[in-house]
């Protein structure tokens, strides 16, 4: 039982840390992608 508990606690902490880091990175870089998409759609269709 102790092994399972320790395993899930590590999983939980890892999930939280990775999610937070990903949210920051994706949040910043996706903003640049939005500008690129607008440019792409404007240039494609005039």
């Amino acid at each position, binding site marked *: 039982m102790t092994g399972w508990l320790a395993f899930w606690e590590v999983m939980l902490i890892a999930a939280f840390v990775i999610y937070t880091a990903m949210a920051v990175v994706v*949040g910043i870089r996706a903003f640049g992608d939005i500008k690129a998409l607008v440019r792409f759609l404007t240039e494609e269709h005039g």
Partner: protein
Amino acid sequence: MSQFTWLDWVIVLVYVVGAGAAGLMGRRYVKTIEDFIVAGRGLNPYLAIATLAGTEMGLVTVVYMAEQGYKNGFSAFVIGLIAGLGMGILGLTGFLIKGFRASGAMTIAEYYEMRYSKGVRWVGGIVIATAGILNMGVFLKAGALFLTQVTGLPEVVSLGGMQIPILNLVMTVLLIVVLLYTVVGGMISVVFTDYIQFIVLSLGFILATVVIVAKLGLGTIAHAVVEYKGIEGLSPFVNPNYGWAYIIWQILLFTTASATWQTAAMRVSATRSPEVAQKVYRWTSLVWIGRAILPMFWGAAALAYFGTRMEGVTEGSLKAMPAMLGQVIPVGILGLLTAGMLAAFMSTHDSYLLAWSSVITQDIIAPLRKRELSTRARIAITRVLIVLIGIFLLIWGLWYQLPSTMWDYLALTGTMYLSGTLAMLTCGLYWKKANRTGAYTAIALGVIFPISQLFLLDKVNALLKASLGFELSPGLAGMSAYIVAMLGMIVGSLLGHAFGRKEGR
């Protein structure tokens, strides 16, 4: 008693108006059906990750994952782990997604026509749209439950002798906002709003988790799981709600859904190339684990906060997590969290509405016409369908009673089409002998088990118990659907060849 105040409502209102306005901006860029359905195939990786995560992290996701955490403790985390690993493997190997993106299809059923036949596309399209819309049928209910509990509002208020269902009204207004911008701007509007929604809901996710740990304590929550659930709260193999069959079903379900669930497939189609699609999957797999495990942890926290007494309340296991949030999270952060959850609600609804309406237009209505439908007509039909599906959701959400947990319902409705799709896409991409006889067999067999579990459970189980001495559990029904669909695909294709028919391509 909920701590929701006027400040929280202001935060929520500012968000809803802002997201709606951003969505409406998308209209100016829509010129073709490709723009409307797959944003002109112009998505770069990070925006694709944000929009995929925004779509698949719905309010309904948070509610059903938390229900799993409340009912099964930490052993529910196995579902999150499977979800992340499933998507990660697709991202690393390119299995299914690379071939699908390279085919150039915009919907899964369109691929069926490219690989098998027009008839397979039509039949497949009907199954995909039916399963998808049924799947979406409980989203409004989940949203209404969350808002009732977190804000502390009554479900019904009396006004001049009339009983007004406040939360149904709120959900209807939200649905109208979503319908409005999805109808005018299609996928481009969805992408714009998904980005904002990803930011707001991620902020809500992170802050809520921090506050829960600070107020209740990780040790206290873990202790409560052990106290109330024992080893079943920790080991998914021992837990009677899970077990081996359930775990195998979840592996098949998440691997297939990550690649071929129509909303995910549309993101694959919207990327610039197969390589970008693969990159999106590699990175999104990391978000996927948190998407499941964090709300499950909130559910376990609700178990620590309320104990098992919510199990005696109607739909108590669904209500426990939002009720706990309403009482634990402080003013201001509660508003932000609710805005985040509404973001999740909106980002899922817009994409799903677009996905299923596109399938009906492209794969069911258009193939019936002898003459090619114009872009203008396709967009007009899709817009009408979006509104019709919205109306169906309101009716179904109020009427339908869940047979077991919300996740089991969602997973079974999803399996209705995913089981056939896994067989048809895998064999279509990697096996030359796959043909339309196999495809029809896979579609038919894949539908039988989930339907029997969802709508004929009592009759099927009585028959099974009398004749074979066992009952069909969700895990067994789900797992069997994938196995028989794959067998049907292989045997059907071999028979098709044996009878010498020139089929498929």
